[in-house]
């Protein structure tokens, strides 16, 4: 199984001043695997994604893609980041560029592809997320769900080897969550390697090959989704899952 | 005695004379600010009134004052008033009139933009709590307006002090004029006098304006929403 490890996090330590956010994280993600990271807010799960993409300097351990270190201080960091796609919680489209320009800017300027080539692929991807008619509008004219779908397309157009999703539906109105999650389900079905931080538990259950539960900067539990959601081994995971469930009014009264 | 040029400052009453000259412009600034403050508040309130006519008149006044260089305004009043109205205004009076006109316009615009920057829902929530319009203004709108208004108003003082340096160009004896006199009188004894004297005036202006700017910025930071 070790032969097809794509992304590896080894003994990762991340501190902000004296606060230890991540305290020795070990994680291997295999080619085509979908890993969902769960945990209470402030547990460090978003920081983990940012470290994987080299957006944060780290204080110990390392992150490796295909065996090559991702180090924000290294010369090859731009190259490494091209291989890791990321979608953020807040809408991060570039407001001064049209949807088409948002998607094709990096392929053209960073990857050096031709305009025709980049636009052809962008159109194909936009078609897949049903937004082809929006290619010439600006981000502010899109709904939150549409923006996130474009953000996913923008990352895909760089042909990343792995995609990171940082609570991409957390800022969305409830009725728009589904359209974004459907796109992600489609990606998973197509064999994309993904690391997903989310609070949508039923979605996590549907998409994950493996669930990682983080608390206090450490991986507390690691299990297949079915086992994690039905029979969590650790007390902290049980408590975490309980915060999402409410009892019926009738049973409370009795 | 090239390297002792700075000693000209301590010769006789030179330094005091410079300070006296500086006081002339600062005095004009302070008088102008004190008069512009109430007038500007009135102008600002008028500009938020519902009458289109009043608004238009205020707008024209504001735009004309703000688009003209202050020196042009000084010329208009100092040279123009004598001829047009037959009154002979001293340079000092002209300067006060011009800087009051200018200060009122600037202050009026500050008041106006502070008033319109209060979001509408502030009025709505005050009304929802059962306040009448006077109570709303007194307890909700006014305190917020003052907070938005005070930092730029204090900043207006430094702008005023800097701008009043122009009065030398209509022949007033202020710090730059005094400097010229000192430099001319010591032409041979202190050949580098102009470097030192103008350098010192530069610093003096800085020492007056900088603390006021800092105060304005500190208040702005403290009250930032």
């Amino acid at each position: 199984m070790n032969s097809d490890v794509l992304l590896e996090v080894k003994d990762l330590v991340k501190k902000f001043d004296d606060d230890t956010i991540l305290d020795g994280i070990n994680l291997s993600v295999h080619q085509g695997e979908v890993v969902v990271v769960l945990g209470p807010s402030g547990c460090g799960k978003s920081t983990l994604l940012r470290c994987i993409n080299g957006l944060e300097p780290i204080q110990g351990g390392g992150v490796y893609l295909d065996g090559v270190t991702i180090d924000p201080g290294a010369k090859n960091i731009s190259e490494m980041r091209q291989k890791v796609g990321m979608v953020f919680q807040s809408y991060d489209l570039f407001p001064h560029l049209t949807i088409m320009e948002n998607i094709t800017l990096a392929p053209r300027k960073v990857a050096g592809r031709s305009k025709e080539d980049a636009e052809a692929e962008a159109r194909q991807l936009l078609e897949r997320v049903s937004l082809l008619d929006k290619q010439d509008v600006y981000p502010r004219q899109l709904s939150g769900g549409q923006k996130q779908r474009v953000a996913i397309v923008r990352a895909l157009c760089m042909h990343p080897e792995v995609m990171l999703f940082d609570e991409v539906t957390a800022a969305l109105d409830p009725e728009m969550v589904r359209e974004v999650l459907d796109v992600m389900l489609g990606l998973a079905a197509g064999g994309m390697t993904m690391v997903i931080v989310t609070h949508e538990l039923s979605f996590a259950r549907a998409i994950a090959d493996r669930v990682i539960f983080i608390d206090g900067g450490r991986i507390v539990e690691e299990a297949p989704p079915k086992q994690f959601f039905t029979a969590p081994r650790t007390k902290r995971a049980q408590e975490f899952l309980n915060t999402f469930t409410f009892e019926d009014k009738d049973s409370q009264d009795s | 005695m090239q390297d002792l040029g700075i000693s000209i400052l301590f010769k006789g009453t030179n330094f005091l004379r410079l300070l006296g000259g500086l006081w002339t412009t600062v005095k004009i600034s302070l008088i102008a600010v004190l008069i512009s403050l109430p007038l500007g508040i009135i102008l600002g309130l008028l500009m938020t009134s519902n009458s289109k006519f009043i608004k238009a008149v205020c707008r024209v006044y504001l735009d004309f004052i703000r688009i003209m260089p202050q020196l042009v305004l000084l010329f208009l009043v100092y040279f123009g008033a004598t001829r047009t109205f037959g009154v002979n205004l001293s340079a000092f009076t002209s300067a006060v009139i011009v800087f009051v006109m200018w200060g009122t316009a600037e202050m009026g615009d500050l008041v106006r933009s502070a008033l319109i920057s209060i979001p509408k829902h502030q009025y709505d929530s005050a009304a929802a709590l059962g306040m009448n319009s006077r109570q709303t203004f007194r307890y909700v709108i006014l305190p917020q307006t003052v907070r938005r208004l005070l930092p730029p108003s204090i900043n207006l003082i430094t702008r005023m002090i800097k701008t009043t340096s122009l009065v030398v160009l209509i022949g007033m004896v202020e710090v730059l004029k005094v400097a010229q006199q000192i430099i001319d009188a010591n032409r041979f004894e202190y050949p580098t006098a102009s470097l030192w004297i103008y350098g010192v005036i530069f610093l003096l202006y800085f020492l007056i304006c900088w603390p006021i700017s800092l105060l304005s910025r500190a208040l702005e930071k403290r009250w930032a929403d």
Partner: protein
Amino acid sequence: MDLEFIHKYAPLYVEAAGLTARIAFFGIVFSLIVGVLCGFIRHFKVPVLQRIVGAYIELSRNTPLLVQLFFLYYGLPKLGIMLSSEQCAVAGLTFLGGSYMCESIRSGLDSIEPIQTESAYSLGFTPVQTMRYILFPQALAVSVPAITANMIFLIKETSVVSAIALADLMFVAKDLIGLYYQTDEALLMLVISYLILLLPISIISSLVERRLRYAGFGN
């Protein structure tokens, strides 16, 4: 109103307006260059340099242009630095305008959410590419109203250059008043000249500001 007088001396004003415009033009161009450089230094908090730029901004914003000009024109020659009147005027205007432009550019850069930089990095943009394609265009759009306001401010400020013996509009007006006592005519032409110089920019800037404020990108 003496129309003949106006007709006779209008060419003097045209010439003087040309001088005012030329000084303002170079002053504004150099101010923008200084402003962009200093704005970047302030935004990115470049060590040491940001202190120097900070001190420059305080000095420049808390002293009158007239005093800066007197120092440049009468003081500097004593240090062996000789500048012509016009060079002094442009240098003074740049010293003053650079700090105003710097603050406008910096606040434009500061207004951009950090997520913009991060998402550019996550797509593989280098810091230089991120600045060029993502941050600078957005910052400029935010800064434009302040920059045009600065331009108007700088054109107005050129009115003091007569103090260092430049034959600008103020100089001509004062000359005519002194020589012929045709005060009304001289002042009228003065006001009209400045209106011609300033009104178009003022109107354009308020149009641009309205567009940016109410529309932004893509409306």
